[in-house]
């Protein structure tokens, strides 16, 4: 396994993201902007447009490259040959291969993840363009892109050091973004809290890695070899089998790794930063933070656990504790309970959705439990359920946090009280929010229903019946706080009935995500096939 020049096209989207980030930063810095508000507006618009166009382009490149939609035919002497040749070349870097000395997997799993993150960043950019950005738009969008880059590498990383670097890249950009509103009361607090939690967690993660590394070295020495530098997940997986899989060193390392990533996916008890940060960060950032960042954490955790610790998989049944599925089962149990119950008394819409997203993290963990089964079909199903849930969750939460961003912008508040009688003020927004909230609650035939359904089925098949039962009960509990949104928007009397307009770009983002939620609800098969392919690759 050595470096090959053909690996470059495989990581083309990442390279393009890097370039785009630098371009956005550069074009903002290198232009002399006027001081007036008009010039500032122009400046923000330029950075936003560049980002949106760039991300859209990269999304298309990623989509063509992945071969999910179509395989480009051979050029046949027609006028479209240039395009066809381009497409062929792109798809030559499609699924398969292991660039950067095997540290980076460019399989279908990565492709799906990459598209999810870039899509989420694109929608976030649209939301941000509809939001008043005060200062340094170039930095804002640049950081957004770098963070996307980090996430996309996180999901693709198959090596500890690269995973750590990617984690840091995405997190550090997000710390700054969370604290981006320097004048606001809550935003710097959010940034600082997020930073403190994040840096502590990444230290824990790093410590876990070092323990795992020590484990591999000592195992290797026991076997008579020299202590080698093995930081690839699969190398660790090779050693962590049989008796060695229950070595305390390895288990401790694994727990540290899970704990370190736990903050990224905000599962209880590593969740405490989430409500404050979600509430305090600029609303479009919250949308991004609660979706793409969480999804990246999940995908990394999943790939890491399944390739580095397949020997320590254990069982998710709560009565016999063993392996990481037990750990995840316990985390899932606490997370669904705490997340959903804590959401009940909230009065701030963003804080409420923050707790709800913690609850969703618990549901998501259910999907990973099925890895305890030895059948590849079961494992593939669990993985597919996980990815499906992540995509749906990303779309739904982007949309609903987007609505809250619009509300904060237009009404100056995102308390539930401010949403009262919304339907008389902005019907389209209310309809979209209603659909999104119903999808979060899991009402059929919206996408959220299928996501929950698949995940519960996975949990059930993994044998975690009591856990699934509790999760179902918590779904009913969650309905109560989701209903509060509907009650506020539709039923409670409006303090004011003057209509307001949604900024067109933000509206586009919200409508796109809502339409996708409805579409994926009516036709869950639309992406299930692709996801299954990705899942069966990851489950091998």
């Amino acid at each position, binding site marked *: 396994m050595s470096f090959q020049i053909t690996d470059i096209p495989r990581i083309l989207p990442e390279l393009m993201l890097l370039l785009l980030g630098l371009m956005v930063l550069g074009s903002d810095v290198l232009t002399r902007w006027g001081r007036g508000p008009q010039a500032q507006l122009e400046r923000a618009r330029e950075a936003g447009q560049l980002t949106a166009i760039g991300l859209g382009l990269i999304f298309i490149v990623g989509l063509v490259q992945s071969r999910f939609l179509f395989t480009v035919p051979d050029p046949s002497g027609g006028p479209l040959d240039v395009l066809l040749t381009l497409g062929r070349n792109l798809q030559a870097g499609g699924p398969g291969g292991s660039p950067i000395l095997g540290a980076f997997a460019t399989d279908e799993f990565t492709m799906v993840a990459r598209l999810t993150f870039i899509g989420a960043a694109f929608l976030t950019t649209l939301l941000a363009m509809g939001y008043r950005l005060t200062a340094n738009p170039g930095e804002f969008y640049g950081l957004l892109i770098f963070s996307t880059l980090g996430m996309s590498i996180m999901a693709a990383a198959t090596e500890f050091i690269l995973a750590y670097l990617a984690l840091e890249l995405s997190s550090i950009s997000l710390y700054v973004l969370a604290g981006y509103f320097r004048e606001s009361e809550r935003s710097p607090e959010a940034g600082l809290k997020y930073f403190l939690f994040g840096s502590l967690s990444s230290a824990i993660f790093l410590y876990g890695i070092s323990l795992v590394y020590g484990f591999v070295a000592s195992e290797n020495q026991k076997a008579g070899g020299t202590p080698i530098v093995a930081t690839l997940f699969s190398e660790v997986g090779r050693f962590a089998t049989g008796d060695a899989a229950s070595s305390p060193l390895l288990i401790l390392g694994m727990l540290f790794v899970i704990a370190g990533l736990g903050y990224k996916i905000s599962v209880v008890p590593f969740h405490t930063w989430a409500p404050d940060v979600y509430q305090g960060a600029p609303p479009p950032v919250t949308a991004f933070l609660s979706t793409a960042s969480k999804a990246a954490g999940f995908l990394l955790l999943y790939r890491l656990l399944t390739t580095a610790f397949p020997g320590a998989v254990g069982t998710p049944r709560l009565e016999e504790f063993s392996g990481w599925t037990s750990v995840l089962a316990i985390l899932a149990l606490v997370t669904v309970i705490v997340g959903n119950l804590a959401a009940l008394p909230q009065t701030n819409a963003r804080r409420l959705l923050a707790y709800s997203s913690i609850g969703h993290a618990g549901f998501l963990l259910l999907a990973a439990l099925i890895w305890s089964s030895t059948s590849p079909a079961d494992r593939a199903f669990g993985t597919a359920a996980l990815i499906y849930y992540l995509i749906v969750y990303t779309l739904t939460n982007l949309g609903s946090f987007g609505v809250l961003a619009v509300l904060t912008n237009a009404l100056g508040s995102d308390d539930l009280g401010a949403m009262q009688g919304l339907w008389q003020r902005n019907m389209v927004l209310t309809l979209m929010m209603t659909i999104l909230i119903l999808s979060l609650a899991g009402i059929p035939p919206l996408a959220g229903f299928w996501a929950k359904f698949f995940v519960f089925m996975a949990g059930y098949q993994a044998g975690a019946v009591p856990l699934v039962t509790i999760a179902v009960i918590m779904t009913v509990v969650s309905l109560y706080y989701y209903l509060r949104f509907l*009650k506020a928007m539709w039923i409670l009397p409006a303090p004011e009935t003057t209509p307001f307009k949604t900024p067109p770009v933000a509206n586009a983002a919200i409508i796109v995500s809502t339409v996708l939620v409805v579409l994926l609800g009516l036709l869950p098969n639309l992406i299930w096939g692709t996801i299954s392919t990705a899942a069966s690759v990851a489950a091998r």
Partner: protein
Amino acid sequence: MPLRQRSVRNAVVSMNSVPLLSVMIWLPALGALVVLALPRQNVAAQRGVSLGAALLALAAAVGVALFFNPAHAGFQLVERVAWVPSWGISYTVSVDGISLWLVVLTAFLTPIALAASWGTVERQERAFHALVLLLASGLFGVFTAQDMLLFYVFFEFTLVPTALLIGIWGGAERRYAAIKFFAYTFSGSVFLLLGIIGLYLLHGQATGVYTFDIATILASLQLGALRLDTGAERLIFGLFFIGFAIKAPIWPFHTWMTTAHAEAPSSGVVDIIGLLIKIGAYGLIRFNVQLFPAAAAWAAPAVGVLAVIGILYAAWIAYQQTDMKRLLAYASVSHVGLIVLGIFALNTQGIAGAVAHMVNSALTTGALFLVVGMLVARRGSRELKAFGGLWKTMPWLGSLTLLLALGSIGLPGLNGFVSEFTVLQGSWRSPGLGWRYTLPAILGVVFAAVYLLHMYRTAFMGETLPELARAPDVRPRELALLIALATPVVVLGLYPNALFGPMQQSVTQIAQGTLPYLASR
């Protein structure tokens, strides 16, 4: 549209390729979208489009009834499109003798309810019409779905429009009523979903065929390919039962319904198509009795007790009411008791009578809700005390109301009598229930006469209150609506075979399924 006509169990009437059921289901939803796209000020167009969509759906339903072959017991006019094939989920719609009636009923009542709302919706009429149409689509879907998951989807789908209609356009306590309605029914539906998934998994594990198709599961159960052990069957029966008992509603789960009726928009739209058309009772027949006959026979005595308590208790409370909508709401709970009693008689008469009573009580009670709506529009109050001597000023309304009330009470010659009599006969002859259940139920029927005549006497007889001296009699539109509802009341009363004929085969088949379990008692 890739559509495949397929016979599931029995031969199916061959039909041209028009997917009549799907047209019927989706026409109102399409109408709702069109209505929402109309300009806000153009109320006439909104009314026209929504009524037109409802009438077209009615035409489609009539078409369904014409193509329906009453000689066959199983599901007919099957339309099937794969939805999530990897999970055995399909969009499969069909009708049998039982669902046919509920489909026709829904199609018949929707345009009436829509026309009844004209002039009573003060704000956002556009959204109002759209929601009513969506509700109709949902109801059609519930009654035709032959796939359990599709059924669940439509079941949930009916909740949102109903809750919004009550919550936005309802009476003074509308918010509380809407939330209560939603919370109750949704919690019930979670049990339903669990039951559905449980049955799906058990069926898949036993036969290797993972499917949500009701006909397939039914066939596996009947052929013995899927044998549920007693505990599992009772558990799943229980899950389904809780869901439908709340929805029906069976005493003691009825409290959401009386609040919902009382606070629903005064025109009676929601009362008629949102609450009176009995999804819950239909579900009890379709799932609980048809799929789990043994558990149904086991549970029949207990359910019978609940039903009888419901009949008597609700009738008694209805008599105590001073609010006309609440009175009718409790009357309708009492009717549900009778319907459930008929279903759990588990014999042909009982089930046929129950289905017939679903139709009849929806017609008569619905018509009475319309009458109350008209009275409220004239007086601005639902209180019984606020009315008196109306017959003098409103002779047309007075006489039609009397006819409808008598139909609801069960006067021989009108529709209510036929179904009540059949239900009572069924429950008497049922080995699971017997005369101990029938006698108190008959008492409840007598109570019905008491509370309805009491209401009629207070409102229409006696001295005319001065406030009502100038109240205008029914307008042509209102008269047309009442006559449209009164016609089947008379026709079905005089010729009940029209009601029982088409459902006979399906009901007989379901009742036969329970026979072995009843005989073994």
